[in-house]
């Protein structure tokens, strides 16, 4: 059995304060196999691959690689064995060049004389062209992933670990990546593919191990399963989806015309003549690959960054020069992408965090004097209504799990009954049941006459809840179209920067 196994792990256990991230996990991978590791956020996938790659060390359990005991003390040992890894949050250095980044990720002995030439050769032979002299900061997210992959390929890996690789790619880029992975597999390289996107796994992988709550709960041949059956294995129950809605739309609440803004960040995205409107009752979904101006758009819309006064209007009133507090007073609320450090202050309690964005709506501030009782009451209300699991409203924000903190922040904004809500990645890191709850409360809010802008990288989510749909790419926004009138292929083209009408003229 050992001969047909490249990597065999058994009994891997890893404990963090308060969580058992991996509980006696075991499985094996054959040479040339594409093996999926599936599970919800927090199921323990990332911890497990970090153990295999030597970034973390297990508390118990053993691993064998190529038949021999394997316990990498650090990533360089894993690499010396022929294990490569592409991280979900890239381990790249923005101010360094592609070649320097590649060199840093390789063991010293493996860096050849003519690295630039090697990078060009390998990247082209796998259909992932790269210029070794460019700075990482100037690359798109898709190109950055190529750097990570090429870095691994240069070391002739026997096992390539990929952590959620497609969340940052357009559908077309996903196709290219899959071709590369299949080519690698046919050359005998095994791939450990981590994802929670079930359709991809069914197309790409030979076998799948399902994790839930740190434990292996099943192993299957994904080609023989339906997405629904794997999903239910992942969640451990039946899945309930919100009903699609066809609401009546009212007046324009948020109107954006010809919005352009140069980014302050040297590696940021410049917004380029963005125009759209969101009506009362409408949920406008904005799709796009990460790093195409989503965060910049949100910052300008909510007033963290100012723009020309007339470019943004709330209920017909120009607000481009007003600050976030003034826009909130006009009924605009927002949920940023980063929870800790943007949507919430990590070392402040939950009730103190309500003061951050709800102080004027909820009457917590009077001539600068704070009414702490009101803040505590509102904090309690959020925790109750949105089922936030926390020790109490005095718990600091950073002590909550990502999903619970997201529920708290979404709750804080929705319970202010905004007339306009701008929300980024509403369900990132949230479990399926809570995600459905958040989707439902967004739809209820819209039904009540609010205009909602949802910016997300999760196409399925947008298809599910939005009434209209647009794509952001390199700081340009496509014309919004009714959801359902547009195919996934078209969306993919838009995400890759091919614009239908307005975009082309300005390009």
């Amino acid at each position, binding site marked *: 059995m050992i001969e047909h196994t490249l990597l065999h792990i058994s009994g891997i256990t890893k404990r963090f304060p308060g969580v058992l991230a991996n509980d006696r996990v075991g499985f094996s991978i054959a040479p040339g196999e594409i093996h999926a590791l599936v599970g919800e956020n927090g199921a323990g996938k990332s911890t497990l691959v970090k153990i295999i790659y030597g970034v973390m060390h*297990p508390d118990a359990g053993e691993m064998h690689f190529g038949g021999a005991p394997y316990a990498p003390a650090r990533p360089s040992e894993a690499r010396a064995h022929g294990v490569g890894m592409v991280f979900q949050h890239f381990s790249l250095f923005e101010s360094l060049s592609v070649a320097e980044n590649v060199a840093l990720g390789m063991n010293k002995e493996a860096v050849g004389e003519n690295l630039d030439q090697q990078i060009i050769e390998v990247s082209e032979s796998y259909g992932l062209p790269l210029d070794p002299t460019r700075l990482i900061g100037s690359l798109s997210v898709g190109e950055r992933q190529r750097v990570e992959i090429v870095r691994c390929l240069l070391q002739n890996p026997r096992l390539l670990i990929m952590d959620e690789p497609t969340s940052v790619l357009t559908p077309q880029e996903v196709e290219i990546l899959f071709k590369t992975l299949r080519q690698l597999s046919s050359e005998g390289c095994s791939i450990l593919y981590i994802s929670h996107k079930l359709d991809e796994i069914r197309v790409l992988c030979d076998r799948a191990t399902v994790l839930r709550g740190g434990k292996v709960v099943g192993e299957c041949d994904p080609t023989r399963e339906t997405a629904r059956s794997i999903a239910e294995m992942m969640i451990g129950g039946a899945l309930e989806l919100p009903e699609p809605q066809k609401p009546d739309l009212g007046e324009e609440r948020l109107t954006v015309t010809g919005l352009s803004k140069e980014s302050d960040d040297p590696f940021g995205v410049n917004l380029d003549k963005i125009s759209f409107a969101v009506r009362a009752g409408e949920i406008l979904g904005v799709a796009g690959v990460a790093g195409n101006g989503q965060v910049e758009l949100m910052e300008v819309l909510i007033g963290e960054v100012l723009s020309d006064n007339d470019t943004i209007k709330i209920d017909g009133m120009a607000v481009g020069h007003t600050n*976030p507090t003034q826009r*909130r007073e006009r009924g605009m609320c927002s949920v940023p992408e980063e929870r800790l450090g943007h949507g919430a202050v990590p070392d402040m309690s939950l009730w103190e965090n309500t003061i*951050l964005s709800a102080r004027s709506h909820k009457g917590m501030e009077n001539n600068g004097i704070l009414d702490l009782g009101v803040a505590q009451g509102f904090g309690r209300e959020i925790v109750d209504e949105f089922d936030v699991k926390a020790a109490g409203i005095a718990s600091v924000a950073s002590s909550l799990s990502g999903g619970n903190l997201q529920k708290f922040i979404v709750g804080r904004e929705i319970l202010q009954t905004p007339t306009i809500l701008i929300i980024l990645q509403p369900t990132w890191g949230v479990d399926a049941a809570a995600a459905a709850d958040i989707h439902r409360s967004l739809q209820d809010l819209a039904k009540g006459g609010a205009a909602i802008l949802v910016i997300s990288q999760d196409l399925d989510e947008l298809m599910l809840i939005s009434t209209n749909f647009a794509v952001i790419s390199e700081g340009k926004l496509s014309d919004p179209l009714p959801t359902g009138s547009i195919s996934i292929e078209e969306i993919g083209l838009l995400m890759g920067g091919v614009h239908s009408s307005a975009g082309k003229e300005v390009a």
Partner: protein
Amino acid sequence: MYRLEPRKEISYLLLYLTPVFAIVLTILAGLVLFTLIGKPPLQAISIIFFEPLGDLYAVSEMLVKATPLILIAIGLSFGFRAGVWNIGAEGQFVAGAIAGGSVALGLYEVEGFWVLPLMCLAGILGGMAWAAIPAFLRTRFNANEILVSLMLTYVAILILSLLVHGPLMDPDGMNFPESRIFHDAAVVPILIEGTRAHVGFLAALVAVAAAWFVLSRHIFGFQTKVMGSSPRAARFGGFIENKIIWKCLMLSGGLAGLAGLIETAGPVGQLVPSLPVGYGFTAIIVVFLGRLNPVGILLAGFVMALTYIGGETAQIELNLPKAVTGVFQGMFLFFLLGIDVFTKYRLRHIKPSKTVAGE
């Protein structure tokens, strides 16, 4: 092996105990230090830390030294919370002394209850004006306020020296670089008869109470906390960074200026080049030792004042240099910062990994 692990919630017990541990560790380190340099360790520690507590004169001197420390530290604490590092309080202290002292000299022999309040106002404005330079350069040109405020300290001290060598020199002072001695209406009244303790200390107490209120009940206190912890969340909350920077620097500059004026019109009684004795720098330690908390700063101000008086006594009795005060102050801060980690992290014993070692 042992490893640090983040705590789920900050340990408030430890938060308030760390300054006490820091003081104990500093005393222990002091014993070692004095043994090393061949001074009687127990006697030296006793002179520095305990003897001043024994008599009224020393206690009143503690009030004198604690007043500027507390005033300056209260002002700095808001900026330090917000991540606005005004390191130049010493310069603002001098600027306040120059501005307020000039008013006193300009109104020389003018009697009136309003002379002293006018001097205080001038002192506050002088400190604010000096702090306005780093505030302007930071908000307008993005220049680092640490370096600018610090450089301005050297400049302010040189201006003071220039003035008492020239325009503000006492005409009857036989060319000594000193101003006239302030007349009675321009001197801070004495609080405890027969000592140098003056009513400026009451101003420090008012500052402590006001700071406590602002910190716990006012939006400005909240803003500084948010900005220091996560600037992006502050922007999300609609707090304008530049306004907070200005407010923090004006507050710390104003209070440092007031402290400078009180020192000049109180214990010193005239403008002299040796006016700045490092209160502006020691106040930084007071802020940290007091955990950025107004009541903590009040206590820490006394502890630091103690090291000044103890240092002076040690200088006389044991022939130690004045700098021994700085050594103790630096050690305080080191120990405090070093054990501070345990309020946010806990030390955990990790069992060695059971996995088989690599090939």
